[in-house]
């Protein structure tokens, strides 16, 4: 009986020793921190950072005038019925980083060559290509051209090529096509921190920074929450009694 018990135990020790003696099969230690998972920034939480107050952002005269003319759909001076918010008036993609300010979660999928950020809201996503140079003549897109590299435990992301019709936040903070973001993404305890530096000579007189904190969210299937211009027009017709003529953006 004892012999029967010892044999499997011995075999296990021998197998384990053999496994340890084979470097090729030993699991490699992760080269970089694991950012993958689902993350959320609850609106009511006080410890999740944010975009600074508008009077702390060094706006150029052009940006200050543009901001003053906007009519946001929420917050101070809200005018939902007549809003100029492109993500509502035209159901445009939120763009970056505004999409990250939405209260729905996002998921990070991490590979050796890319980090993908998948937002649940509107099924928007961006890709961060790792260890490649920034494109000197990038395509102009809603979510920009992002490249990244690891500096120790921090993923440093450089992005350009942002379409200038998006707002940087729901207050109407403007930018030009010369917007350049540098993000330092890193774990902060169980949370995920994005330290974002904004450079845009047309909109800001000097670089400024925002600090966003995301908390872990239960993983699993993402819900579908796609919002379209037909949804918006339906809502406006039914709730605001507005006629559904679409103004042309100029």
């Amino acid at each position: 009986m004892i012999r029967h018990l010892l044999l499997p135990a011995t075999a296990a020790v021998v197998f384990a020793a053999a496994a340890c003696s084979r470097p090729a099969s030993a699991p490699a230690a992760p080269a970089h921190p694991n950012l993958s998972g689902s993350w959320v920034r609850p609106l009511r939480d006080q410890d999740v950072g944010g975009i600074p107050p508008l009077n702390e952002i060094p706006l150029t005269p052009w940006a200050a005038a543009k901001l003053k003319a906007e009519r946001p759909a929420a917050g101070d001076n809200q005018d939902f019925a007549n809003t100029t918010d492109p993500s509502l008036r035209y159901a445009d993609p939120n763009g970056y980083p505004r999409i990250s300010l939405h209260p729905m979660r996002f998921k990070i999928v991490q590979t050796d060559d890319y980090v993908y950020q998948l937002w649940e809201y509107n099924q928007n996503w961006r890709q961060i290509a790792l260890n490649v140079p920034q494109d000197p003549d990038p395509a102009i897109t809603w979510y920009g051209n992002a490249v990244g590299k690891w500096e120790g435990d921090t993923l440093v992301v450089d992005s350009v090529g942002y379409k200038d019709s998006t707002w940087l936040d729901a207050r109407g903070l403007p930018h030009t096509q010369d917007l350049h973001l540098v993000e330092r993404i890193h774990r902060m305890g169980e949370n995920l921190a994005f330290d974002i530096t904004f450079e845009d000579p047309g909109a800001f007189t000097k670089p400024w920074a925002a600090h966003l904190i995301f908390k872990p969210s239960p993983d699993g299937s993402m819900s579908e929450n796609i919002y379209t211009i037909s949804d918006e027009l339906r809502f406006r017709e039914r709730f605001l009694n507005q006629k559904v003529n679409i103004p042309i953006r100029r």
Partner: protein
Amino acid sequence: MRRSLWLVGSGFSRTLSVTAAACLVSASAFAHHGAASIYDMGKETTIKATVTEYVWTNPHVELGISPSGGATTELLLELGSPPNIRNRGWSSRTVKAGDVVTVTFHPGLRGAKIGVVVKMVTADGKELRA
């Protein structure tokens, strides 16, 4: 503070109450638009009514009701977005036309026949917050 304004019925009891409220509004409503330029966020109205339509759509699920018990929408109410209120226990089958519910909402400004739902109690007594 809660006071009853009406008690009317033709075989159908109705109550309309106004509550001076420290109001909690669903984050989902704010995600699409601010509520203060459309609704009177200082008021809550509670009413028993018949469901005339229940549309599971973006940006907000729509609940049409008839306080008079008819089949035509007399008040159009918005809820959160589908995934947000699903997390709070709602589904596309929570109610259907003809059901009688008691719903609490912030009414539209300037007498508009709209509102944003705070909570709803179904005929079998189940309470759901929007």
